[in-house]
């Protein structure tokens, strides 16, 4: 069948309608069959699928309305167009209430008929696409990445299930790298809002002015550089979920604005005077102690109570050591697949090292360690030497255990492993190149051999 054409079944007791319409649709490139009664139509339904059904409303025996009911029982997504005379328009309206897509009045205006058919075909395609995407979303949601069997993880999953079922604001707490965004995505994926977007805003990465514009959007000319009207994240999350990461980093003014939005569910764009209703579920996350910040006057008490309706604390990895082998195996499979490497398992010795390490960078650090190990591993098994140096040597000594020390070592090692390829190093570290550059300056790292222009064969590594 050609693109833009459909399989159409015309059901009408008048031969002239069946024949003329059939010829007309065939001329337009559609595949057409006809039935002189509802009974014949239902028999045809057993043998073939149709995209669009054109049903005459008045037929002897089973009429169009009844046929539509039977069709919808067999094929709930059937696109039905009712054909009616002026005298029975009321019945056509009734048919639409029962799920008909549209109705056309006899005799047909050729132009209207063409439009109705085009609209019906687009509708049919959209319904099919929507169904396909929903299935895909459900499949993806089933495969979410919360891995572990420890009591802490089981408790975490219970909490996710509990809060997902409601529309309650959730506050996720946990050290850096514990997977707060993952939990937020899991809540969204299990909620009724899952088919609509989850919009993520990292509040810590934006200055107050930029954050305000990001959240609320702006009208054209609201400030220098605002050349176009732009929707903010509140509006973009309409019907879905807004995830505010690092909520402890937002300034006091934005805290007031945010509180007002949460209370009133309405916003004004920056520079705008039109009230826009918003509908989102808020999930906030922080690695800071909001209670202390509150006592110090850095975080508003009213906002704290507004967002702390259901609190989930993700335990650090060191407190759920029994999850480490499972997580390591999960990441091993993930990276072996994405990097197309034949790495199959982790040696007992390496596993032992992983289990005994403190993991100050939590799951993110474990993930990076396995990613690196898969990258450098020469055989099918990850050995002790494939692990990053700080993990391999154990960092349980009091000296060199600060986060800054570990960061410094980790960056240095990653740069060495990637041959100072800043793009690859930044990707492995999951930071942008500017941040990496700033860290190099901060720690005084310098490449010993001069950087040469990338070879042509490597040019595709640049994102452009």
């Amino acid at each position: 069948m050609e693109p833009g054409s459909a399989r159409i079944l015309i059901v009408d007791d008048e031969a002239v309608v069946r024949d003329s319409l059939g010829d007309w649709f065939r001329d337009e490139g559609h595949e057409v069959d006809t039935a002189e009664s509802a009974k014949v139509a239902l028999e045809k339904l057993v043998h073939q699928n149709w995209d669009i059904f054109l049903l005459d409303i008045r037929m002897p025996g089973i009429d169009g309305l009844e046929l539509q009911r039977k069709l919808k029982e067999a094929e709930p997504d059937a696109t039905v167009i009712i054909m009616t005379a002026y005298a029975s328009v009321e019945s056509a309206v009734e048919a639409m209430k029962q799920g008909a897509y549209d109705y056309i009045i006899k005799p047909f205006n050729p132009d209207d008929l063409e439009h109705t058919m085009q609209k019906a075909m687009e509708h049919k395609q959209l319904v099919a696409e929507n169904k396909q995407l929903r299935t895909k979303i459900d499949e993806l949601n089933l495969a979410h990445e919360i891995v572990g069997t420890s009591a802490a993880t089981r408790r975490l999953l219970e909490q996710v299930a509990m809060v997902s079922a409601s529309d309650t604001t959730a506050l996720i707490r946990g050290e850096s790298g514990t997977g707060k965004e993952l939990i937020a995505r899991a809540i969204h994926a299990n909620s009724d809002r899952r088919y609509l977007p989850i919009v993520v805003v990292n509040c810590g990465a934006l200055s107050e002015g930029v954050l305000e514009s990001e959240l609320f959007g702006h009208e054209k000319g609201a400030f220098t550089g605002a050349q176009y009207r732009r929707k903010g994240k509140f509006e973009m999350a309409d019907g879905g979920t807004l995830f505010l990461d690092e909520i402890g980093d937002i300034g006091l003014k934005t805290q007031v604005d945010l509180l007002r939005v949460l209370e009133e569910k309405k916003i004004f764009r920056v520079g705008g005077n039109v009230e826009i209703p918003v509908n989102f579920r808020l999930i906030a996350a922080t690695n800071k102690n909001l209670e202390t910040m509150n006592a110090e006057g850095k975080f508003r008490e009213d906002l704290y109570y507004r967002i702390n309706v259901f609190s989930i604390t993700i335990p650090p990895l060191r407190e759920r050591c029994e999850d480490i082998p499972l997580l390591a195996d999960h990441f091993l499979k993930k990276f072996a697949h994405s990097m197309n490497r034949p790495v199959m398992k982790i040696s007992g010795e390496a596993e032992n090292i992983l289990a005994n390490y403190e993991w100050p960078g939590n799951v993110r650090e474990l993930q990076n360690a396995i990613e690196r190990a898969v990258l450098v591993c020469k055989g099918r098994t990850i050995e002790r030497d494939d692990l990053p140096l700080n993990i391999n040597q154990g960092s349980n000594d009091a000296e060199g255990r600060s986060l800054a020390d570990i960061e410094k070592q980790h960056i240095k090692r990653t740069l060495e492993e990637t041959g100072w390829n800043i793009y690859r190093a930044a990707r492995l570290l999951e930071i942008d190149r500017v941040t990496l550059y700033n860290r190099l300056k901060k720690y005084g790292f310098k490449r010993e051999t001069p950087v040469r222009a990338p070879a042509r064969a490597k040019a595709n590594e640049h994102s452009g």
Partner: protein
Amino acid sequence: MRSNAEIRIVPVGPADRDLLEYLALTLPGRFGWGCVEVTANLSLEETYNSTRRQYHSTALLAQLRELAIDDSKILGVTDLDLFIPIFTFVFGEAQVGGRAALMSTHRLRQEFYGLPADRRLLLARAEKEAVHELGHAFGLGHCRSFDCGMRFSNSVEQVDLRPCQFCQLCEGELQGISGFNLAA
């Protein structure tokens, strides 16, 4: 050109002499057949539907078919409003590969849409519609190309968008049927 192969234009109802003359002048260039105007006695009353206040196109076409002699093609030209039972109106009707075609100027006139008359536009639209219906009579089906006179039109706007000439494929097909090479 085959003997007796000509297009016979038949006025259906009151004739618009100027329009018939224009069509007789232009159509040979499109089909390569001579074009003559003939008159005939048709029973218009038989085809009139008083409820719809329109003339049944298929019934008129059947009468026109009887007028064809030898290999000629009949083109009925009318200003009456035409219908077929399932549609509110038709611009024209023809049988693919048949001996007759019928076209109406009723809904090609700007006045029908409450606009000032535009003679030039009417002639251009009438020529397109004549070419389209005769195209069917010569054996061409509808074409999906926007650049073809055989593209289906449901409204006068679509008639305006449609060109008078055929696309390469339809032109080739027509040459095979009529033996006329437009490019020659």
